[in-house]
């Protein structure tokens, strides 16, 4: 019974972390699938989202949940800046240009954050952090549960939006054939803004939700973007469903590894899966060869 409880505990922890990987990976996989561009500066959206939540709640004294919503708005604005300043100028050129431009942006933003925020780790105390609930003998931290619930809610809403709405259809059409999508009256520049705004919002939300669980550091984006990249590649580049399953799956696997083996093996697991998938199924678990799509 103790073992069962321990497993349940680790699975919940894993789902929380996995949810954050998923929030990051969704934006990255959409940017890749719809716009053919790779965003190496995605982790900085996550980091700035966390610092935005810190700023609103700790400096301005706004309630935590409102601060999270404001951090999402900051994420939207940052996403739009990414599109206008980094990605639009290199669209339609060699894809390597976007890689280099976003790598440069990542280094710049990370160091600017170090300069402005300082290197010392910060924390966001929230009213939920100390609270625990007992669910069938499993003790659960309310902040973690909140993060998980919000993440799942947002991912379901996003999935519905991409699958059923007019703009979601336009995004998928653009992913499949940009030229013909333009012939249908879809403005590709608008779609790109929408994709980056969405990606920015999701990453910033992730940062704002885990900010209170972990500590805030300017380098936090670098660690997260690496994991999100593994999720994107393993799930299949451009696949939304792949990012969702892989993100949560990887989080749970990592968490179980930490709980039952050793935390030293956490990153070993992710990279082992990455290598295995690249070896036997290079298009990713949910990826399609040749064509791309939602």
């Amino acid at each position, binding site marked *: 019974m103790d073992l069962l409880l321990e497993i349940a505990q680790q699975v919940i922890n894993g789902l929380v972390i996995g949810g954050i990987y998923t929030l990051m990976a969704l934006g990255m996989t959409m940017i890749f699938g719809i716009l053919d561009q790779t965003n190496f500066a995605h982790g900085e959206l996550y980091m700035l989202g966390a610092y935005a939540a810190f700023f609103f709640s700790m400096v301005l004294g706004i309630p935590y949940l409102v601060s999270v919503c404001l951090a999402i708005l900051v994420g939207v604005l940052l996403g739009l800046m990414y599109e206008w300043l980094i990605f639009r100028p290199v669209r339609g050129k060699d894809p390597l240009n976007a890689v280099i431009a976003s790598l440069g942006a990542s280094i710049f933003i990370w160091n600017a954050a170090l300069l402005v925020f300082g290197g010392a780790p910060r924390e966001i105390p929230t009213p939920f952090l100390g609270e625990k609930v007992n669910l069938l003998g499993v003790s659960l931290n309310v902040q973690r549960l909140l993060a998980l619930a919000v993440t799942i809610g947002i991912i379901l809403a996003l999935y519905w939006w991409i699958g059923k709405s007019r703009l979601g259809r336009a995004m998928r059409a653009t992913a499949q054939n940009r*030229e013909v999508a333009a*012939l*249908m*009256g879809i403005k590709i520049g608008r779609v790109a803004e929408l994709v980056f705004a969405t990606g920015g919002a999701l990453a910033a939300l992730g940062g704002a939700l885990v900010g209170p669980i972990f500590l805030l550091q300017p380098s936090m984006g670098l660690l997260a973007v690496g994991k999100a990249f593994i999720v994107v590649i393993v799930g299949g580049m451009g696949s939304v469903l792949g990012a969702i399953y892989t993100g949560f799956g990887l989080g749970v696997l990592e968490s179980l590894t930490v709980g039952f083996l050793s935390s030293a093996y956490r990153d070993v697991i992710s990279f082992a899966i990455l290598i295995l998938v690249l070896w036997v199924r290079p298009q990713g678990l949910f990826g399609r060869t040749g064509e791309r799509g939602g």
Partner: protein
Amino acid sequence: MLRLKGVDAYYGQLQILKGVDLEVRPGEIVTLLGANGAGKTTTLKTIVGLLHPRAGEIVFKDKVINRLAPDETVRLGLSLVPEGRQVFPALTVFENLMVGAFTQRNKAEIERSLAFVYELFPRLTERKNQLAGTLSGGEQQMLAIGRALMSDPEVFLLDEPSLGLSPLLVEKVFATIQAINRLDKTILLVEQNAYQALQIAHRGYVLETGRIVLSGSAASLLQNEHIKKAYLGQ
């Protein structure tokens, strides 16, 4: 209605169109004939704004549209059925049609267009929830035509709709084009299948290495010795 005056177009440094003059009047079916590489597809791409002319003028409804992007020309009433159909393979038939209606915001209008397309192609009704990539070539062509109709265009541009279809389906596609024309839609039809195209067209132009070398009524072109030899195999 649609008029090209001395249009030059390039792919990079390569000149494809050399002073193309062409006119399509309201209610007409005009066909643009020519061999592979003559510049037929380039002409259509230049009209809808996927390419921009380096010289000359494209006038649609008394407006110069040289610099417009494709998402703007479709709002003015031009709609292209691209070569090779190019349906969105991972979208369903219904979703493909709805993307075609992207510029339409009036729900009732969209419903009407949808009902019209389903009536024109009952086959698409049966398969509306199927992914477009799983349709046969003929069904994909119908979907591509239906999708272009969803924007309720005034001028309908078709790029080789008969390409790769069986003779029976080719007949059906050409009959459909005539049916659409009877609904007051103006049509510019690019074809390699000169005989079939001239059967339904009012007038025609012949494009050779980027230049219009012949033009006239469909009946006169069918009798023309050069056309008979080069395009009709007679």
